[in-house]
């Protein structure tokens, strides 16, 4: 379980987090919403030790992240999958290499094992058909085409899916999604939402999703947390969010609904 206690973080004069405390329940999907610049991505990076808090503590299964040695921190990160906002795929590598880089660098050199991991995760995110449902030649052809592509040859939705597939490699216990639907069309966004919801259920992982997309919240969240001005403004279920009378929450939902209603 991840416990965040009174975490503060500033970048120069800009105070991003001003004392955030929360629990991330296991086996559920926690969605963090809030306006841009409220510290949502910063919070995720603090949890995995990519950033250091100025004050407060973050504990993962009883162990404080700030007290971990570098090797313990790397060991801890192997329990996490992280889907970056822009997918953060390695430009110079193929899809397959992007997926198994971590395993390869940790000493796994068996090409069969690496291929199996690529196949399993590309199937999981729906980029390859289930090998049991198609002939071997059709599957191998689809695999060869996709696995050898470079990120620049993929569409935005495919890049996100490859990013999710990469996060699933090594069967992590936690998956963090940093704005997984940003920049995608509504249909692809919905597919990614379905994928996030399905993976949490199918793989029994703890997911944390950062999003601006209220539709995503209703689709995937067990718990919703709203950050505002560096503090937690709301915490509850999607149903409680919808019926909240807090003016800030209300304004956020209204603006979102309004901006989407204007779309022709």
């Amino acid at each position, binding site marked *: 379980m991840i416990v965040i206690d009174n975490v503060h973080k500033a970048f120069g004069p800009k105070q991003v987090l001003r004392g955030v405390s929360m629990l991330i329940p296991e086996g559920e999907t926690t969605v963090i919403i809030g306006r841009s610049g409220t510290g949502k991505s910063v919070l995720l*990076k603090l949890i*995995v030790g*990519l950033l250091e808090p100025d004050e407060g503590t973050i504990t993962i299964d009883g162990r404080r992240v700030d007290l971990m040695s570098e090797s313990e921190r*790397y*060991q801890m*990160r*192997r329990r*996490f*999958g*992280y889907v*970056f*906002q*822009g997918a*953060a*795929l*390695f*430009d110079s590598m193929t899809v397959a290499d992007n997926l198994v*880089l*971590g395993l390869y*660098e*940790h000493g796994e050199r068996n090409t069969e094992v690496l291929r199996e991991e690529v196949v399993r995760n590309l199937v999981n995110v729906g980029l390859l058909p289930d090998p049991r449902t198609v002939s071997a030649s059709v599957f191998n052809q689809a695999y060869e085409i996709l696995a050898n592509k470079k990120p620049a040859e993929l569409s935005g939705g495919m890049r996100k899916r490859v990013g999710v597939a*990469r996060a699933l490699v090594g069967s992590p216990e936690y998956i963090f999604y940093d704005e997984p639907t940003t920049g995608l069309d509504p249909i692809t966004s919905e597919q990614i939402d379905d994928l996030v919801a399905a993976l949490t259920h199918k793989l029994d992982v703890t997911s944390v999703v950062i999003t601006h997309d209220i539709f995503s919240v209703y689709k995937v969240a067990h718990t919703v947390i709203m950050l505002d001005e560096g503090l937690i403004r709301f915490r509850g279920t999607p149903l409680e969010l919808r019926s909240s009378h807090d003016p800030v929450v209300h304004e956020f939902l209204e603006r979102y609904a309004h901006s989407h209603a204007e779309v022709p």
Partner: protein
Amino acid sequence: MIGEDRTTSSDDGEEGGLLNATFGALGRVLMGFFAEFGRIVLLLRSVIRYIPTAIRSRRLVLEQMYMIGVGSLPLVLLIGSFTGAIAALQATNLFAKFNLLALARPFVGGSIATVVFTELSPVLTALVIAGRVGGSIAAQIGTMKVSEQIDALEMMAVHPSRYLAMPRVMAALVMMPMLIVFSDLVALLGAFLLVILKFTFQPADYWDSIRRFFSVYEIVVGMLKSATFGGVTALIGCYVGFNTEGGAEGVGNSTVRSFTLSSAAILVLDALFGYVL
């Protein structure tokens, strides 16, 4: 009187303020310099820590060796040949100016070789590499930084110093002395062609002179210098890349910054080598 006192006191105050501001600014610059130097040393320590993994990561090291060595060879050959020719031109012109050319013939080849081996070839090649390779390293790693690829590596529990910095620094350390050997050879050839064609030297005079004054020590000094310059250039390129911020503009700035810092470091180190060796 009171008015005069006030004026004097106000002038003193202004002077004191200016002095404080000047020392304050100087102090900040010095602090910034030492802080940056300290961070580069920390990166170097991290790179050294991962050198034992170079065999396991040989694919990465070989890729970088190809990029730094083979990729830079045409440019190094071009610069080397002109360096030799220009050194020969300046030396022979100088001797001719004082009517000493006939007397100096037995020494021209040797003196050109000494200057080329110990100074011109290592420094000029290093400056070219600082532009081509250092800039490219800073841009590559900087782009990875701003697009969160470095964070992605961290999340795979792959240390960026091991995966990105160590192979580049190792490759530069190994390939630079090799490039220098090629640079030295073409520089001697460039100088040879110039003294033969322009100053009608006999080929035997030129090569005999080199043979007589040639010393392995000079070659070793040149290679040692070039390995150091190459390693420092790659290290600075990595450091600047890892500290890139702010999108495409930041990447562009990093490329320039890497070249500027590397060039300054090369010249300072060259002066130190000149003093010590």
